[in-house]
Protein backbone atom coordinates (compact mmCIF):
# COMPACT_ATOMS: atom_id res chain seq x y z
CA UNK A 1 0.00 0.00 0.00
CA UNK A 2 1.22 3.50 -0.74
CA UNK A 3 1.72 6.07 2.04
CA UNK A 4 -1.43 7.91 0.92
CA UNK A 5 -3.45 4.70 1.15
CA UNK A 6 -2.07 3.97 4.64
CA UNK A 7 -3.10 7.47 5.73
CA UNK A 8 -6.60 6.97 4.28
CA UNK A 9 -6.88 3.66 6.13
CA UNK A 10 -5.72 5.18 9.43
CA UNK A 11 -8.18 8.10 9.11
CA UNK A 12 -11.03 5.67 8.38
CA UNK A 13 -10.03 3.52 11.37
CA UNK A 14 -9.69 6.49 13.73
CA UNK A 15 -13.00 7.98 12.59
CA UNK A 16 -14.77 4.64 13.12
CA UNK A 17 -13.21 4.26 16.58
CA UNK A 18 -14.25 7.79 17.57
CA UNK A 19 -17.83 7.13 16.42
CA UNK A 20 -17.94 4.15 18.76
CA UNK A 21 -16.09 5.61 21.77
CA UNK A 22 -17.04 9.29 22.01
CA UNK A 23 -20.86 8.92 22.20
CA UNK A 24 -20.40 6.12 24.77
CA UNK A 25 -18.15 8.23 27.00
CA UNK A 26 -20.41 11.28 26.53
CA UNK A 27 -23.41 9.31 27.73
CA UNK A 28 -21.50 7.81 30.67
CA UNK A 29 -20.53 11.32 31.74
CA UNK A 30 -24.14 12.53 31.45
CA UNK A 31 -25.40 9.58 33.46
CA UNK A 32 -22.79 10.32 36.11
CA UNK A 33 -24.01 13.92 36.30
CA UNK A 34 -26.89 15.29 38.38
CA UNK A 35 -29.39 14.60 35.63
CA UNK A 36 -28.67 10.87 35.98
CA UNK A 37 -30.51 8.38 33.77
CA UNK A 38 -33.03 11.05 32.76
CA UNK A 39 -30.19 12.43 30.64
CA UNK A 40 -30.86 9.67 28.11
CA UNK A 41 -33.08 11.14 25.38
CA UNK A 42 -36.17 8.99 24.77
CA UNK A 43 -35.60 8.80 21.01
CA UNK A 44 -32.18 7.30 21.66
CA UNK A 45 -33.64 4.64 23.94
CA UNK A 46 -36.24 3.80 21.26
CA UNK A 47 -33.59 3.61 18.56
CA UNK A 48 -31.60 0.87 20.36
CA UNK A 49 -34.13 -1.97 19.95
CA UNK A 50 -35.01 -0.72 16.45
CA UNK A 51 -31.35 -0.97 15.38
CA UNK A 52 -31.35 -4.60 16.56
CA UNK A 53 -34.54 -5.25 14.58
CA UNK A 54 -32.87 -3.67 11.53
CA UNK A 55 -29.78 -5.88 11.91
CA UNK A 56 -32.19 -8.84 12.12
CA UNK A 57 -33.98 -7.73 8.94
CA UNK A 58 -30.70 -7.41 7.04
CA UNK A 59 -29.51 -10.83 8.21
CA UNK A 60 -32.69 -12.64 7.09
CA UNK A 61 -31.72 -12.53 3.40
CA UNK A 62 -30.10 -15.91 2.58
CA UNK A 63 -26.50 -15.99 1.32
CA UNK A 64 -27.71 -17.64 -1.92
CA UNK A 65 -31.35 -16.51 -2.35
CA UNK A 66 -33.55 -19.19 -3.96
CA UNK A 67 -37.04 -20.57 -3.30
CA UNK A 68 -35.40 -23.39 -1.32
CA UNK A 69 -33.26 -21.12 0.86
CA UNK A 70 -36.23 -18.78 1.51
CA UNK A 71 -38.37 -21.75 2.54
CA UNK A 72 -35.59 -23.06 4.81
CA UNK A 73 -35.20 -19.54 6.27
CA UNK A 74 -38.92 -19.25 7.05
CA UNK A 75 -39.08 -22.71 8.65
CA UNK A 76 -35.78 -22.20 10.51
CA UNK A 77 -36.96 -18.90 11.98
CA UNK A 78 -40.30 -20.49 12.91
CA UNK A 79 -38.41 -23.23 14.78
CA UNK A 80 -36.23 -20.60 16.52
CA UNK A 81 -39.35 -18.75 17.66
CA UNK A 82 -41.04 -21.91 18.96
CA UNK A 83 -37.95 -23.03 20.87
CA UNK A 84 -37.48 -19.52 22.25
CA UNK A 85 -41.10 -19.48 23.52
CA UNK A 86 -40.48 -22.75 25.34
CA UNK A 87 -36.98 -22.09 26.72
CA UNK A 88 -36.71 -18.25 26.83
CA UNK A 89 -32.98 -18.76 26.20
CA UNK A 90 -30.68 -17.74 23.34
CA UNK A 91 -28.53 -20.82 22.77
CA UNK A 92 -31.14 -23.54 22.14
CA UNK A 93 -33.22 -21.58 19.60
CA UNK A 94 -30.07 -20.81 17.59
CA UNK A 95 -28.85 -24.42 17.66
CA UNK A 96 -32.29 -25.75 16.68
CA UNK A 97 -32.72 -23.17 13.90
CA UNK A 98 -29.28 -23.78 12.35
CA UNK A 99 -29.81 -27.56 12.51
CA UNK A 100 -33.25 -27.22 10.87
CA UNK A 101 -31.92 -24.87 8.20
CA UNK A 102 -28.94 -27.14 7.47
CA UNK A 103 -31.07 -30.29 7.26
CA UNK A 104 -33.59 -28.59 4.97
CA UNK A 105 -30.88 -27.17 2.70
CA UNK A 106 -29.13 -30.52 2.47
CA UNK A 107 -32.29 -32.65 2.31
CA UNK A 108 -34.38 -30.53 -0.04
CA UNK A 109 -31.27 -29.61 -2.03
CA UNK A 110 -30.64 -33.31 -2.71
CA UNK A 111 -34.27 -33.79 -3.84
CA UNK A 112 -34.20 -30.76 -6.15
CA UNK A 113 -33.56 -31.60 -9.82
Amino acid at each position, binding site marked *: MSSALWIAMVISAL*GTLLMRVVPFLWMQRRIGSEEGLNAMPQWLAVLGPLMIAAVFGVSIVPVEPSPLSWLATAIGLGVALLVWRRTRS*MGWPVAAA*VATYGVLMLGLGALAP
Partner: protein
Amino acid sequence: MNPAADHSPWRSAMQGVRESIPLLGGYVPVSLSFGLVAMQAGFSTWEAAVISVLIYAGASQFLFVGMVAAGSPLWLVVCMTLLINVRHVVYGPNIAAWLPQSRHWYWLMHGLTDQVFALAHTRLPQLAAEVRFSWFAGSALLAWGVWVVGTVIGATAGEAVTARWPLLGEVMPFALPALFLTMVAPRVTDKRWALALGSTIAAALLLTLYGLSNVAIPLAAACGALYFYLVPFQPKKRTA
Protein backbone atom coordinates in the same frame (compact mmCIF):
# COMPACT_ATOMS: atom_id res chain seq x y z
CA MET B 1 -20.73 -21.36 47.21
CA ASN B 2 -18.25 -18.51 47.08
CA PRO B 3 -19.91 -15.36 45.69
CA ALA B 4 -16.53 -13.81 44.86
CA ALA B 5 -15.72 -16.76 42.62
CA ASP B 6 -19.02 -16.27 40.77
CA HIS B 7 -17.97 -12.73 39.93
CA SER B 8 -14.40 -13.56 38.95
CA PRO B 9 -13.41 -11.56 35.86
CA TRP B 10 -12.12 -14.67 34.09
CA ARG B 11 -15.38 -16.56 34.58
CA SER B 12 -17.54 -13.68 33.37
CA ALA B 13 -15.22 -13.09 30.40
CA MET B 14 -15.62 -16.77 29.51
CA GLN B 15 -19.38 -16.35 29.80
CA GLY B 16 -19.15 -13.49 27.30
CA VAL B 17 -17.06 -15.68 25.00
CA ARG B 18 -19.54 -18.58 25.26
CA GLU B 19 -22.57 -16.40 24.60
CA SER B 20 -20.90 -14.81 21.57
CA ILE B 21 -20.28 -18.11 19.80
CA PRO B 22 -23.50 -17.87 17.72
CA LEU B 23 -22.20 -14.56 16.33
CA LEU B 24 -19.30 -16.43 14.79
CA GLY B 25 -21.69 -18.14 12.39
CA GLY B 26 -21.83 -14.80 10.62
CA TYR B 27 -18.30 -13.59 11.34
CA VAL B 28 -16.38 -16.60 9.98
CA PRO B 29 -17.83 -16.72 6.43
CA VAL B 30 -17.84 -12.93 6.02
CA SER B 31 -14.27 -12.48 7.27
CA LEU B 32 -13.10 -15.32 5.00
CA SER B 33 -14.81 -13.55 2.09
CA PHE B 34 -13.22 -10.24 3.03
CA GLY B 35 -9.73 -11.78 3.08
CA LEU B 36 -10.38 -13.31 -0.32
CA VAL B 37 -11.80 -10.10 -1.82
CA ALA B 38 -8.93 -8.02 -0.41
CA MET B 39 -6.38 -10.36 -2.00
CA GLN B 40 -8.19 -10.18 -5.34
CA ALA B 41 -8.21 -6.36 -5.02
CA GLY B 42 -4.41 -6.37 -4.76
CA PHE B 43 -3.89 -6.15 -0.98
CA SER B 44 -1.39 -8.43 0.75
CA THR B 45 -2.41 -10.76 3.60
CA TRP B 46 -0.75 -8.46 6.11
CA GLU B 47 -2.52 -5.38 4.74
CA ALA B 48 -5.91 -7.13 4.79
CA ALA B 49 -5.27 -8.18 8.41
CA VAL B 50 -4.34 -4.61 9.43
CA ILE B 51 -7.57 -3.31 7.84
CA SER B 52 -9.55 -5.88 9.83
CA VAL B 53 -7.74 -5.00 13.06
CA LEU B 54 -8.07 -1.23 12.70
CA ILE B 55 -11.28 -0.51 10.79
CA TYR B 56 -13.15 -3.64 11.99
CA ALA B 57 -16.50 -2.94 10.34
CA GLY B 58 -17.63 -5.46 7.75
CA ALA B 59 -19.55 -3.49 5.13
CA SER B 60 -17.19 -0.52 5.15
CA GLN B 61 -14.13 -2.77 4.78
CA PHE B 62 -15.58 -4.31 1.62
CA LEU B 63 -16.36 -0.82 0.36
CA PHE B 64 -12.86 0.42 1.25
CA VAL B 65 -10.99 -2.27 -0.71
CA GLY B 66 -13.53 -2.18 -3.54
CA MET B 67 -13.24 1.59 -4.03
CA VAL B 68 -9.44 1.50 -3.76
CA ALA B 69 -9.29 -1.29 -6.35
CA ALA B 70 -11.59 0.74 -8.63
CA GLY B 71 -9.22 3.72 -8.37
CA SER B 72 -11.62 6.06 -6.53
CA PRO B 73 -10.14 9.21 -4.98
CA LEU B 74 -8.93 8.49 -1.45
CA TRP B 75 -10.87 11.36 0.12
CA LEU B 76 -14.06 9.79 -1.26
CA VAL B 77 -13.02 6.35 0.03
CA VAL B 78 -12.57 7.80 3.53
CA CYS B 79 -15.87 9.73 3.40
CA MET B 80 -17.87 6.72 2.23
CA THR B 81 -16.26 4.42 4.80
CA LEU B 82 -17.11 6.83 7.62
CA LEU B 83 -20.61 7.48 6.25
CA ILE B 84 -21.44 3.77 6.35
CA ASN B 85 -20.14 3.50 9.91
CA VAL B 86 -21.99 6.56 11.22
CA ARG B 87 -24.79 4.33 12.55
CA HIS B 88 -22.39 3.26 15.31
CA VAL B 89 -22.86 6.59 17.09
CA VAL B 90 -26.16 5.45 18.61
CA TYR B 91 -24.82 2.12 19.91
CA GLY B 92 -22.54 3.38 22.72
CA PRO B 93 -25.13 5.64 24.43
CA ASN B 94 -27.62 2.78 24.48
CA ILE B 95 -25.40 0.52 26.61
CA ALA B 96 -23.54 3.22 28.58
CA ALA B 97 -25.86 3.02 31.59
CA TRP B 98 -25.10 -0.67 32.16
CA LEU B 99 -21.30 -0.47 32.03
CA PRO B 100 -18.89 0.86 34.68
CA GLN B 101 -16.43 3.69 34.11
CA SER B 102 -13.06 2.40 32.86
CA ARG B 103 -10.03 3.74 31.03
CA HIS B 104 -10.13 0.58 28.88
CA TRP B 105 -13.20 1.78 26.99
CA TYR B 106 -10.95 3.94 24.79
CA TRP B 107 -9.84 0.80 22.95
CA LEU B 108 -12.41 -1.79 24.03
CA MET B 109 -15.34 0.14 22.50
CA HIS B 110 -13.70 -0.52 19.14
CA GLY B 111 -15.32 -3.95 19.46
CA LEU B 112 -18.84 -2.46 19.43
CA THR B 113 -20.04 -3.81 16.09
CA ASP B 114 -23.68 -4.25 15.02
CA GLN B 115 -23.74 -7.82 16.30
CA VAL B 116 -21.87 -7.22 19.57
CA PHE B 117 -24.17 -4.25 20.27
CA ALA B 118 -27.27 -6.36 19.69
CA LEU B 119 -26.01 -9.06 22.04
CA ALA B 120 -24.80 -6.59 24.68
CA HIS B 121 -28.06 -4.60 24.59
CA THR B 122 -29.96 -7.79 25.33
CA ARG B 123 -27.64 -9.45 27.85
CA LEU B 124 -26.08 -6.60 29.89
CA PRO B 125 -29.28 -5.66 31.77
CA GLN B 126 -29.73 -9.33 32.73
CA LEU B 127 -26.22 -9.62 34.21
CA ALA B 128 -24.96 -8.57 37.65
CA ALA B 129 -23.25 -5.16 37.54
CA GLU B 130 -19.93 -6.69 38.72
CA VAL B 131 -19.58 -9.02 35.75
CA ARG B 132 -20.62 -6.71 32.91
CA PHE B 133 -17.18 -5.28 32.10
CA SER B 134 -15.53 -8.70 31.83
CA TRP B 135 -18.50 -10.13 29.96
CA PHE B 136 -18.30 -7.33 27.37
CA ALA B 137 -14.51 -7.71 27.10
CA GLY B 138 -14.81 -11.47 26.51
CA SER B 139 -17.56 -11.05 23.94
CA ALA B 140 -15.96 -8.18 22.03
CA LEU B 141 -12.44 -9.63 22.00
CA LEU B 142 -13.61 -13.03 20.75
CA ALA B 143 -15.54 -11.46 17.87
CA TRP B 144 -12.64 -9.14 17.00
CA GLY B 145 -10.06 -11.94 17.15
CA VAL B 146 -12.15 -14.29 15.00
CA TRP B 147 -12.71 -11.51 12.47
CA VAL B 148 -8.96 -10.94 12.08
CA VAL B 149 -8.07 -14.65 11.99
CA GLY B 150 -10.86 -15.24 9.45
CA THR B 151 -9.46 -12.44 7.28
CA VAL B 152 -5.97 -13.98 7.33
CA ILE B 153 -7.32 -17.44 6.47
CA GLY B 154 -9.48 -15.95 3.74
CA ALA B 155 -6.51 -14.08 2.27
CA THR B 156 -4.23 -17.10 2.34
CA ALA B 157 -6.58 -20.01 1.63
CA GLY B 158 -10.05 -18.53 1.11
CA GLU B 159 -10.78 -20.19 -2.21
CA ALA B 160 -9.65 -23.62 -1.01
CA VAL B 161 -11.66 -23.38 2.24
CA THR B 162 -14.93 -22.32 0.60
CA ALA B 163 -14.51 -24.92 -2.15
CA ARG B 164 -13.91 -27.70 0.39
CA TRP B 165 -16.69 -26.73 2.80
CA PRO B 166 -19.36 -24.96 0.69
CA LEU B 167 -21.94 -25.27 3.48
CA LEU B 168 -19.67 -23.18 5.73
CA GLY B 169 -20.71 -20.11 3.82
CA GLU B 170 -24.34 -21.11 3.40
CA VAL B 171 -25.59 -22.75 6.61
CA MET B 172 -23.46 -21.14 9.34
CA PRO B 173 -24.61 -17.56 8.64
CA PHE B 174 -28.15 -18.64 9.57
CA ALA B 175 -27.03 -18.50 13.22
CA LEU B 176 -27.22 -14.70 12.96
CA PRO B 177 -30.92 -14.22 12.06
CA ALA B 178 -31.83 -16.95 14.55
CA LEU B 179 -29.90 -15.18 17.30
CA PHE B 180 -31.31 -11.75 16.44
CA LEU B 181 -34.81 -13.18 16.45
CA THR B 182 -34.35 -14.26 20.07
CA MET B 183 -33.26 -10.67 20.82
CA VAL B 184 -36.17 -8.99 19.04
CA ALA B 185 -38.97 -11.31 20.22
CA PRO B 186 -38.90 -10.28 23.91
CA ARG B 187 -39.25 -6.62 22.89
CA VAL B 188 -42.65 -7.18 21.28
CA THR B 189 -44.48 -6.14 24.42
CA ASP B 190 -47.45 -4.24 22.94
CA LYS B 191 -49.02 -3.19 19.62
CA ARG B 192 -46.94 -0.05 19.39
CA TRP B 193 -43.63 -1.91 19.66
CA ALA B 194 -44.89 -4.74 17.44
CA LEU B 195 -45.66 -2.27 14.65
CA ALA B 196 -42.39 -0.35 15.07
CA LEU B 197 -40.24 -3.51 15.17
CA GLY B 198 -42.20 -5.21 12.38
CA SER B 199 -41.91 -2.22 10.06
CA THR B 200 -38.18 -1.94 10.83
CA ILE B 201 -37.59 -5.62 9.98
CA ALA B 202 -39.64 -5.34 6.76
CA ALA B 203 -37.86 -2.15 5.69
CA ALA B 204 -34.41 -3.63 6.39
CA LEU B 205 -35.31 -6.78 4.47
CA LEU B 206 -36.61 -4.83 1.47
CA LEU B 207 -33.66 -2.44 1.37
CA THR B 208 -31.25 -5.39 1.48
CA LEU B 209 -33.12 -7.18 -1.30
CA TYR B 210 -32.81 -4.03 -3.41
CA GLY B 211 -29.05 -3.98 -2.87
CA LEU B 212 -29.04 -1.18 -0.29
CA SER B 213 -27.65 -3.22 2.61
CA ASN B 214 -25.08 -0.52 3.40
CA VAL B 215 -27.76 1.95 4.45
CA ALA B 216 -30.45 -0.54 5.44
CA ILE B 217 -29.82 -0.49 9.20
CA PRO B 218 -30.09 3.27 9.87
CA LEU B 219 -32.88 3.82 7.30
CA ALA B 220 -34.97 0.90 8.55
CA ALA B 221 -34.52 1.98 12.19
CA ALA B 222 -35.59 5.51 11.25
CA CYS B 223 -38.66 4.07 9.51
CA GLY B 224 -39.53 2.08 12.67
CA ALA B 225 -39.03 5.18 14.83
CA LEU B 226 -41.46 7.10 12.59
CA TYR B 227 -44.10 4.42 13.14
CA PHE B 228 -43.36 4.44 16.86
CA TYR B 229 -43.95 8.18 17.19
CA LEU B 230 -46.48 8.92 14.45
CA VAL B 231 -49.00 6.07 14.57
CA PRO B 232 -51.37 6.85 17.41
CA PHE B 233 -52.38 4.12 19.80
CA GLN B 234 -55.31 4.87 22.01
CA PRO B 235 -55.46 3.05 25.32
CA LYS B 236 -58.54 0.87 25.80
CA LYS B 237 -61.41 2.75 27.38
CA ARG B 238 -62.28 1.51 30.83
CA THR B 239 -65.88 0.69 31.48
CA ALA B 240 -67.36 2.38 34.48
